[in-house]
């Protein structure tokens, strides 16, 4: 029994790590620009499909390196054309626009690549478990966790030690003052959005190895990301990190005892947090109320 419990907790952490990657991108965009990006799942799908398309030419590792930046470029274009006019307006509008954008992306990927799921193969040496006891920790899943850890580490380095990162952090707290200090806020927002979408694209490439690649796969992964942000606390990236891991573990444990509720538990958790501690675990008071 304890072994089963240990397995499920470990498994939950692995699942959670993936949610963290998605949620961080969403969180970045939300914190700085007050934009609720309902199309984030769509960018994940784009990342996955780009990787699928270029893999025959550059291999799995090449796709891993090239697809996320390409997705980020697309994100940059979208931000410039569609999202920029919405800054300063009620968050309702960005929600609706990205909602519509998600439709367009789903239909577009179906149009270009077809509705049929695409087979994605990962390098053979990764596609096996590290031991027969811990069979659910395959090389690929471990690699995914490592990739997430690396991405998160790089993100924190970016935010802590670079000028861009400092400006993003400052902008999250007080964008007006940042603008008054002469920083080009438009470019800041664009770059911030691009970083967020880069993370979405990376999630897509990693997901494609683990799941079936098809146009509708983004929607199921979007809501857990939102929940991770809410639970962890809007405005805090560390909170998002914790939130993602927490809901991953909660989902894994629930699947062990009460599988029917393994998805619903995330929403229940979110509802509880919002009622009891609305700013989230590590959020700052007044960020969004």
């Amino acid at each position, binding site marked *: 029994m304890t072994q089963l419990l240990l397995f499920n907790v470990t498994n*939950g952490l692995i699942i959670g790590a993936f949610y963290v990657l998605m949620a961080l991108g969403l969180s970045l965009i939300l914190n700085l620009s007050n934009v609720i990006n309902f199309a984030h799942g769509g960018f994940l799908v784009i990342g996955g499909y780009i990787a699928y398309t270029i893999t025959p030419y550059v291999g799995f590792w090449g796709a891993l390196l090239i697809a996320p930046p390409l997705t980020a470029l697309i994100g940059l274009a979208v931000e410039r054309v569609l999202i920029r006019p919405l800054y300063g307006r009620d968050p309702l509008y960005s929600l609706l626009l990205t909602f519509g954008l998600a439709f367009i992306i789903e239909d577009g990927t179906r149009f270009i690549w077809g509705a*049929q799921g695409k*087979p994605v193969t990962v390098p053979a040496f990764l596609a096996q478990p590290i031991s*027969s006891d811990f069979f659910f920790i395959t090389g690929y899943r471990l690699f995914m966790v490592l990739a997430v850890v690396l991405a998160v580490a790089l993100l924190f380095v970016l935010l802590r030690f670079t000028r861009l990162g400092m400006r993003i952090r400052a902008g999250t707290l007080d964008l007006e003052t940042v603008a008054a200090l002469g920083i080009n806020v438009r470019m800041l927002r664009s770059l911030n959005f691009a970083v967020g979408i880069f993370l979405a694209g990376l999630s897509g490439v990693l997901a494609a190895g683990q799941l*079936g690649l098809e146009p509708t*796969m983004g929607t199921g992964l979007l809501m857990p990301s939102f929940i991770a942000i809410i639970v962890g606390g809007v405005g805090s990236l560390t909170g998002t990190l914790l939130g993602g891991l927490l809901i991953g573990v909660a989902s894994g444990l629930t699947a062990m005892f009460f599988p029917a509720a*393994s998805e619903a538990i995330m929403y229940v958790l979110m509802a509880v947090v919002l009622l009891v501690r609305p700013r989230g675990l590590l959020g700052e008071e007044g960020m969004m109320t």
Partner: protein
Amino acid sequence: MKTPILSLVSDRRKLLKGAAAMGALQVASPFVIPVRAVDNIKMGMVDPLTGVYAAPAGNEVTGAKLAVEQINAKGGILGRQVELLVEDSANDVGTGVQKARKLIERDNVNFIIGDVNSGIAAAIAQVTAEKKILHVVSGGHTDTITGKDCHWNVYRVCNTTRMEANSVSDLLYNKYGKKWHFITPDYAFGHTLYDACAANLKKLGGTVTGNELTPLGTTDFSAYLIKARAANPDVLLLLVQGSDMINCLKQIVQFGLDKQIHVAGTQQELESLAGLPPEARIGIWMFEWYWKQPGVPHVAEFVAEIRKRNDGKVPTARHWFGYASAMTFALVANQQKSLDAVKLAQALSDFELPPEVKLQPNKVYYRNGDHQLMTSAFVGEAVSKGKDDPEDLFKVDSVVPGDKTAPPVADTGCTLKWPA
């Protein structure tokens, strides 16, 4: 630096307005409803062309379109040309019902085919029964459609879950062992499939080591696989379908579970096998129809015709469902020389499909008591790489006739009430 941004803004507006105008043009031109040739016989088809079932639904439509072409080439129905009107149910019941009403009330269709989604199929069946329109359910599997919710005007082509369970149970028990563990999708299709399999297993003397109910759309099966492994079964039966099947199989192979436990299931589809990486194409399954049937008449022609319309890809069971459904209408209407729904529905009882439509070796007919097509089960094993053809991903071991897999009518719970 300023001017380029300004012009970019106005350019963007122009671009978006231009795109909107072009879109409007493409859509607006046929807004004046084209005067439908009153002479034509219309077949309506409602299927979820967008959403998670888009792939099988699209294939069903392709099959039906081929059928209509062939029907028209041979002179149509009662000498009149046939028109196929396809509507997207978008995997939403409200939309499906509305489209069915649209086809019946506005477009005056004589026949309805649909839906892949069992829930929508059942809801549409209520509308067609109310409006007295002959309705063939092409791809919705829930047993109640030819069970306790059967209607006089509704016939079904694809298998019921009981038929699927019955087709593989003996084989799995004899070949693999008596301890079975299940991964079941948590909705009606999954539940009835599990109940049927579990009942069969019990009759044979085996035991169920566990049943993991997975929510639809589960992407990560690791928690369930951990439990399955811990239960130490002989066979792991995957009852999930579509993307769930793909994700689950992928993960099973990545975890190396297939080396410790036999993997099998009931319904499997070519769409899923094609979406899997080669190393994950494993297990014993049943197909509802398979394209490679050497020696069976007319199959090769059908495959060739579908290839032309399907980017060179072979037909799947879904293509055949759509094809057989549309053909059914033409065959029975031409035979009875009538379009009256009640008359045709009565004529379809025990109606046998001819070789060029049934495309399989056994006798295939619509059973009298429940309107279920007695179609065969193609039982076999998944193959990671096709030998002669990259799409030959399934090795058929036996083709079991429908009336051997189907439970007796009395067990289905169907009582047909014919209109006065």
